[in-house]
């Protein structure tokens, strides 16, 4: 599992999360603007450099995205296929194939972000980006989701195990979906009620004290790179 924060001391770890988000967005814009063999080759070199700076292993990261493989392969196959001879036109499949490769590059950049940024830092970045109450709800909410993710994963695994123990796999698909929905919903409500009470007991407020983000001289090069990428995309 490569998709989580890994403590470290690299250049990318020390960047302000906002700079990292900006670079990430700039890479995406540049990749969409230059989906050509030359453009993607240049970006490959850049992304390789980013992964090196962020101490992100490339092959292991790509392996954790293997669930995407069918979608990435399906694009070129569906577009290149024809009904009747010659069955497959390579020229038609080139553009979707380049697009699939672009997705791989973007996945790598976001892996580097995830591995170098604490969720708490991201929360502050969200509240900086979306000021006011919306930012508070979304920023705090992301932290809460992190807290409840393993709990609910466990809940639903319990539900499934209980279903299997009672020969649930023999039931129709609709019935199984309904059972998971009903029991899952009961757990969600029970936990939500207790959680709301706990939040109130701990003075859940619109204006909590958060860590302060302070950009340093290190963010200069990162911002320049992002601006350069955007300029390249605009050409």
């Amino acid at each position, binding site marked *: 599992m490569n998709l*989580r924060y890994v403590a470290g001391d690299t250049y990318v770890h020390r960047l302000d999360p906002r700079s990292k988000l900006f670079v990430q967005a700039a890479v995406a814009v540049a990749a969409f603007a230059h989906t050509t063999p030359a453009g993607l080759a240049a970006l490959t070199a850049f992304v390789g450099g980013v992964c090196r700076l962020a101490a992100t292993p490339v092959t292991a990261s790509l392996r954790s995205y293997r669930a995407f493989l069918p979608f990435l392969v399906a694009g070129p196959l569906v577009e290149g296929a024809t009904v009747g001879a010659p069955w497959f036109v390579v020229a038609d499949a080139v553009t979707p194939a380049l697009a699939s490769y672009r997705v791989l590059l973007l996945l790598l950049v976001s892996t580097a972000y995830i591995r170098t940024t604490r969720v708490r830092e991201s929360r502050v970045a969200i509240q900086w980006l979306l000021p006011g109450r919306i930012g508070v709800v979304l920023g705090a909410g992301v932290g809460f989701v992190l807290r409840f993710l393993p709990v609910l994963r466990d809940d639903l695994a319990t539900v499934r195990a209980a279903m299997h123990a009672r020969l649930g796999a023999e039931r129709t698909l609709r019935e199984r979906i309904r059972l998971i929905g009903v029991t899952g919903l009961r757990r969600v409500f029970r936990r939500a009620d207790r959680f709301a009470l706990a939040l109130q007991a701990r003075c859940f407020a619109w204006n909590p004290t958060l860590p302060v983000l302070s950009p340093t001289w290190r963010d200069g090069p990162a911002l320049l790179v992002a601006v350069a990428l955007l300029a390249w995309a605009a050409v």
Partner: protein
Amino acid sequence: MTTATDSVELVGEEATGNVARAVLFAAATSATAPVDMVHPLAPNVPITLQTLWVYLAGVVLGPLWAGVAFTLYLLAGLVGLPVFAGGNAGLGVVLGPTGGFLIGFPLAAMTVGAVAHGLDGLTAPDAIPVPRLVLALVAGTAVVYAAGAVGYALVQAIGLVAAVSAVVVPFLPVAGLKIAATVAIARSDAIVAR
């Protein structure tokens, strides 16, 4: 070192309850993402229950908080929690081939909520007439698959027809099953107890 002198402004009771429910719905959606089941007719199409939670959020939370729940889900994935299908995360996924579906989730949840409840106030889920409930769920399904197909076509640089045949058609029978299941859930005591 600065000192804040503002007084603490507490979040009200109702809003706190809604935040808690939105969070739990987002977490439940994330928890179902890696769970897939096999369809007897199409064993190569994994079924995740994410859209079931989209439907349920719309029906139970209403348009506003269902939208918040799935915006939270999307943001949680963007900042790196492994909440997307297969335990993935990051901007790369949202800009990837299935990103259209993810962006469609908040829109679909709001659509389901808006059609089922209207825009002023919530109705108890078991008091929504079945035709209206089904209409809401079909509308939500249309939104999520339209967003998914457009996203897939843009990202993979292929035509809309090819995109629809690749990512919409195989999943439609399962979507029908989920709609039927949601209607049954909305009529069950899991929600009536609220």
